[in-house]
């Protein structure tokens, strides 16, 4: 009995301490443990997926690396926690992960009731539909009566319900918790339609047994601003995660790349000098709790936003997603960073 009570006491104490740690300064915790614990998805090629030897890569993964680089000047100081759509929020709330970089849509509910903070949108997305070409469907409005595969715990399943309801269409939802289960069911013909963020569809289509038999319908039925999320109540950490994204955008705007970053330090442009931390007496990095080299370190680790995009999901990847809304504001898109000054 005594032994059992002891175990219970220790367990409860650990719980209490754990919860406490989660609300302390995340940056200090991260520095103390020596790595960033990053919540990613379980495997969505292009966004976050491990290779055969367990090395993660992808658009979201590069954000984890960029955060680690900003703090440790070393993009490899990351540990990844794969999370399903459903697991991701408890993982962040409980402090199991320091940041969630996992194609997560910024919504008011998540920003308030769930206790998270969102700011930069690193990918402007929208929900789409994928069908078999053989069905001869040209528009989502022809989908009445279809069985639709969807992953639970997403904005996707909510948009789906609203879209079919507002267009007076019937459908039969087939809901799974894990991504592989949705994929397998759709591939086996359990559903006529697969719906998720359009970026996800591009990636998932390539994992099907016959990708060319499937097409993505033109309709985009929702706004899915995807971005990194952190817990409320730690402004410094929130700032760091936000400014990592802005640094990536700013670097693309200045034309600073992984290859030329050292070169660019010699740029006569004072804006670039300040950004790269070479301005005399600069406090640009120390004010946020990092070193003045923080932006340089990010760019050395992953390149600028354009490079991250191209390499993982854009022209240089099998996904070949267009920049579209995610082009810089100066090039017809809406990616924009506040001034670094």
């Amino acid at each position, binding site marked *: 009995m005594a032994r059992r009570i002891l175990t219970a006491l220790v367990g409860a104490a650990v719980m209490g301490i754990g919860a406490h740690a989660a609300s302390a300064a995340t940056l200090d915790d991260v520095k103390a443990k020596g790595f960033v614990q990053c919540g990613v998805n379980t495997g969505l090629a292009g966004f976050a997926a491990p290779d055969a030897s367990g090395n993660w890569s992808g658009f979201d993964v590069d954000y984890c690396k960029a955060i680690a680089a900003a703090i440790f000047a070393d993009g490899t100081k990351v540990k990844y926690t794969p999370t399903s759509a*459903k697991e991701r929020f*408890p993982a962040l709330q409980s402090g199991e992960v320091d940041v969630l970089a996992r194609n997560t849509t910024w919504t008011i509910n998540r920003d*308030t009731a769930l206790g998270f903070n969102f700011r930069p949108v690193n990918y402007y997305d929208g929900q789409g539909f994928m069908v078999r070409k053989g069905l001869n469907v040209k528009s989502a409005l022809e989908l009445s009566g279809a069985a639709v595969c969807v992953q639970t715990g997403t904005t996707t*399943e909510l948009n789906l319900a609203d879209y079919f309801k507002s267009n007076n269409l019937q459908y039969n939802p087939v*809901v799974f918790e894990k991504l592989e289960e949705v994929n397998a069911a759709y591939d086996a013909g359990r559903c006529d339609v697969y719906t998720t963020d359009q970026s996800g569809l591009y990636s998932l289509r390539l994992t099907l047994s016959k990708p060319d038999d499937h097409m993505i319908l033109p309709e985009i039925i929702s706004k899915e601003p995807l971005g990194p999320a952190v817990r409320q*109540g730690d402004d410094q950490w929130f700032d760091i995660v936000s400014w990592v994204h802005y640094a990536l955008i700013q670097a693309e705007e200045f034309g600073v790349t992984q290859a030329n970053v050292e070169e660019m330090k010699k740029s006569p442009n004072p804006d670039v000098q300040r950004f790269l931390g070479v301005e005399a007496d600069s406090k640009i990095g120390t004010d946020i709790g990092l070193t003045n080299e923080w932006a340089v370190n990010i760019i050395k680790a992953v390149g600028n936003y354009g490079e991250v995009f191209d390499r993982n999901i854009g022209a240089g990847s099998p996904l070949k997603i267009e920049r579209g809304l995610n082009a810089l504001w100066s090039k017809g898109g809406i990616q924009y960073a506040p001034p670094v000054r």
Partner: protein
Amino acid sequence: MAIGVTTTPEKSKPSGSIMNDPQVRGIFYQVITVVILVALVYWIADNTIQNLKRANIASGYGFLNGRAGFDVGQSLIAYTSDSTYGRALVVGFFNTLLVAVTGIITATIIGFVVGIGRLSHNWLIAKLSLAYVEVFRNIPPLLVIFFWYSGVLAVLPQPRESAALPLNIFLNNRGIAFPKPVFGDGSQYVFYTFVIAVIASFFLARYARIKQEATGQRFPLLWTVLGLVIGLPLLAFLATGSPITFDVPVAGKFNLTGGSVIGPEFLSLFLALSFYTAAFIAEIVRAGIRGVSKGQSEAAHALGVRPGLTTRLVVVPQAMRIIIPPLTSQYLNLTKNSSLAIAIGYADLVAVGGTILNQTGQAIEVVSIWIIVYLSLSLTTSLLMNWFNARMALVER
């Protein structure tokens, strides 16, 4: 544990300290244990509330009245995305109940057949039954579920090539579609006569038993009851001008439309749970029958009772006393295993609750609802089975 100390039979004389009295010491330890337990629970609850507050996470059960906003694949009650979260949970609860009850019934039937089969003198039947038990008992239930689900999906045809079965029943990888009865005007009489027939059969059964006990004559109960229960409603059906029609499934754009559909998720979960649990029930049944002493059936034979009747009237009633208690725990297992539904997307209580948990972030509230519901389900099952057990218990005359 400390509690055991109280039942010390002998009273030792108090020599010196009062703590040497085992009775006092026993009470003392129990009080301490309770105090520590209460303090612990309080501390955990308080800590949780504090932490939720600090993390700015909303709490309380108010969210149950909010609009759910998501759809559920299969529902026994009316439900749309406009219904509340509370109603969505009820939908999930009924789905759990549905698969548990149908699973329990089927598992019991298969289990009894296989269990008796294991004792068969027929070599093939005995070995097949043995193989069944060993295969299903030794595979984790989750794998059995996946086996059925991928099997069902892989084997059944695509909707456009649905297999047509007799009676307008169709089979494809979206499930079994069958004609749905449409109740027109006057169909209530068919229902009334059915109820009357059932009540009449009940009294008839009593009459038959009393008559047999008094005179020893047996009444052809089975046929009379069948005639009543089928014949009376049929008469009413014809008399009211065939008010019940059928909505038959027909090929639509994506799948069959019309009729009723039982989806592959339910089918595979139901089959998996039934087959899996049946293996355990078979062993319980075999042990139960073995547990009835041989002398009982020999005595029956000596009295000239036929073998079939011997099994039914002498062996099984006695075996039931051994069978029922472990059977109860199999029923509880089946009910709890039904929560594996989540792996194949069947909308049971855990799946629907999980969706709600995620959309609202009310983890503690949803988990507490799960615990309470499963606990009540299990306790109810136990109560029912205990009652049944008491009825079957040896009545000494």
